[in-house]
């Protein structure tokens, strides 16, 4: 009743292969895009941008990236935090001018040679490319090991990368604090990083990347590459027998996943936080947070990545609203309660619906097709 697909016929394969084959879905998608680009920028304020929309958009990119690796290709990764850090630091180096020091001074002193500073938009993209390369490097063990063992190997990446960004001063441009701070940079003349940004500008900047990431991921997963990933995930022996090169399939998944995670790390640092201390921001908890997002949202689903990100971003905000503002509990108690409730909800969720929010959504659509008539 609510969800009509009657009368929706396809007469060509391209039309059947669309992202949203059902007309109602398609219109809803356009409507969401129209609201996101045309309405929200006029209504947004700093609270909405910083508490809800920016983290949601940025975590969505990371969740889509991780979902490609874990949900579509079946390779478990616990290194997301470390890979986001790679994106953040790469973006920092590109936006402040990538430098090398060479002993070419008159008395063999080291002299700094630097690239010109790169526009923030391209810095973010390049950060994604660098992260893709690093992720592929740490994905190499996947050619030999699977499952939990691979997870442990990627865990090593997590700790190694955080250690490296803490130790090697070149990465944070030798700043005394060991932090990286995003200087003010603009895109098309509008500042999107640094202290003097407007909420709508940062929101739109992130939205462009999020929409791009979703379209990229959707196109890849519905085509040939996506099928090779899923084939490897479902049965790697059979995949190989019908011509999937397992090395290529796994490493492309690591690369695409790394690219998206890197972009999200870059945005997280440059646009959302503005200053980063690597151990705090990109620690192991971040890896687990993004992993929870895709497990709760639904493995192997782009929509699930969005749903999971929204769930874990909104839940603390909602609990704080409920606890502090409505019920008047002290803030610290609510903060602790938050941890307990989020944890309990995750456990309950996994028992009740192991396939995540995306599956709930599919079931709901299935029901709405027939409602209110049972047959």
């Amino acid at each position, binding site marked *: 009743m609510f969800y009509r697909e009657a009368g929706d016929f396809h007469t060509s394969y391209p039309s059947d292969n669309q992202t949203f084959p059902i007309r109602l879905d398609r219109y809803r998608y356009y409507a969401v895009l129209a609201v996101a680009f045309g309405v929200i920028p006029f209504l947004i304020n700093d609270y909405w941008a910083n508490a809800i929309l920016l983290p949601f958009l940025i975590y969505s990119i990371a969740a889509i990236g991780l979902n490609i690796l874990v949900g579509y290709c079946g390779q478990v990764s616990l290194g997301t935090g470390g890979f986001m850090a790679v994106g953040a630091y790469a973006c920092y180096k590109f936006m402040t001018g990538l430098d090398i020091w060479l002993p070419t001074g008159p008395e063999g002193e080291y002299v700094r040679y630097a690239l010109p500073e790169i526009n923030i938009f391209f810095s973010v993209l390049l950060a994604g490319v660098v992260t893709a390369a690093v992720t592929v490097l740490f994905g190499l063990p996947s050619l030999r090991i699977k499952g939990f063992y691979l997870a442990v190997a990627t865990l090593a990446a997590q700790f190694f990368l955080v250690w490296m960004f803490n130790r090697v001063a070149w990465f944070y441009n030798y700043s005394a604090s060991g932090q990286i701070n995003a200087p003010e940079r603009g895109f098309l003349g509008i500042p999107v990083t640094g202290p003097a940004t407007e909420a709508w500008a940062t929101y739109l900047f992130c939205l462009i990347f999020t929409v791009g990431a979703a379209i990229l991921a959707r196109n*890849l997963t519905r085509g040939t590459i996506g099928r090779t990933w899923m084939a490897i995930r479902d*049965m790697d*022996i059979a995949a190989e*027998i*019908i011509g*999937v090169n397992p090395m290529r399939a796994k490493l492309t998944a690591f690369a695409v996943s790394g690219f998206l995670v890197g972009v999200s790390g870059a945005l997280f640092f440059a646009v959302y936080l503005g200053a980063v201390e690597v151990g705090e921001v990109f620690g192991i908890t971040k890896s687990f947070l993004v992993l929870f997002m895709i497990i709760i949202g639904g493995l192997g689903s782009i929509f699930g990545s969005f749903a999971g990100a929204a769930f874990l971003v909104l839940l603390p905000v909602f609990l704080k609203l409920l606890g502090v503002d409505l019920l008047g509990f002290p803030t610290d108690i609510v903060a602790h309660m938050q941890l307990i409730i989020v944890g309990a909800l995750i456990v309950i969720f996994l028992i009740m619906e192991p396939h995540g929010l995306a599956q709930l959504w599919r079931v709901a659509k299935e029901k709405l097709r027939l409602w209110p008539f049972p047959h």
Partner: protein
Amino acid sequence: MLDQTEGYVTEDGRQIGGVVMEMKNITLRFGGVVAIKDISFDIREGEIRAIIGPNGAGKSSMLNVISGFYIPQEGEVWFRGSKRPPTRPYEVAQQGIARTFQNIALFEGMSVLDNVMTGRLTQMKSSIFHQALWRGKAEAEETANREIAEKIIDFLEIQHIRKTPVARLPYGLKKRVELARALAAEPKLLLLDEPMAGMNVEEKEDMCRFILDVNDEFGTTIALIEHDMGVVMDLSDRVVVMDYGKKIGDGTPDEVRANQEVIDAYLGVSHD
């Protein structure tokens, strides 16, 4: 060079061509166990070739040698007139050999259509960047290959379950989907590992019809392993019989049926 003789004409009047695949003195060992012992046979263009034998005779090992899972310690594999070096299974697939498995090896999380489309992989050449944008070559390629996949879906009469996730299908249909996936590759040689295992009579009849149709319509060369003797004798043009890793018979079904060694292997014989 290989013996490229003319071939022969089957009882039902089909012309069988030259040698497609030749196994020469294949020996395969797992540690001390000799799974295949000095076996030679050939598969000719357009024929249905059966490999039979009691349990543990080494039939599946033989198929695994052909499809590149096992590298034999001794012997040569010749495919379409040239000797094949030790090859990874996906390279074997790219050369045009497709197969099905004894225990169904479908991609359970994907729809029937996606499974069949995966069979077209070796023909899909567009780069990851084209695919990411879903423009130009990638979309054209997707549509062209979809058409071929749909033809095979039509052929095997599984249109109605096209978009159903494979995990939801009953056993008989899964077997058919697996055949569809192998056929989608338009193989030059199709290997079927017990295509009728665990089926009831009706499903077996359907499967026999499909195998004959495939051979007839596409001229696909088929090598199959099967336990149902009735099926084997009906379907196949020539039969290889294995027992304990050795070849004990090779010829038309009638010849094999009359072979004393084969009868002994199947019915048992006292060894004193």
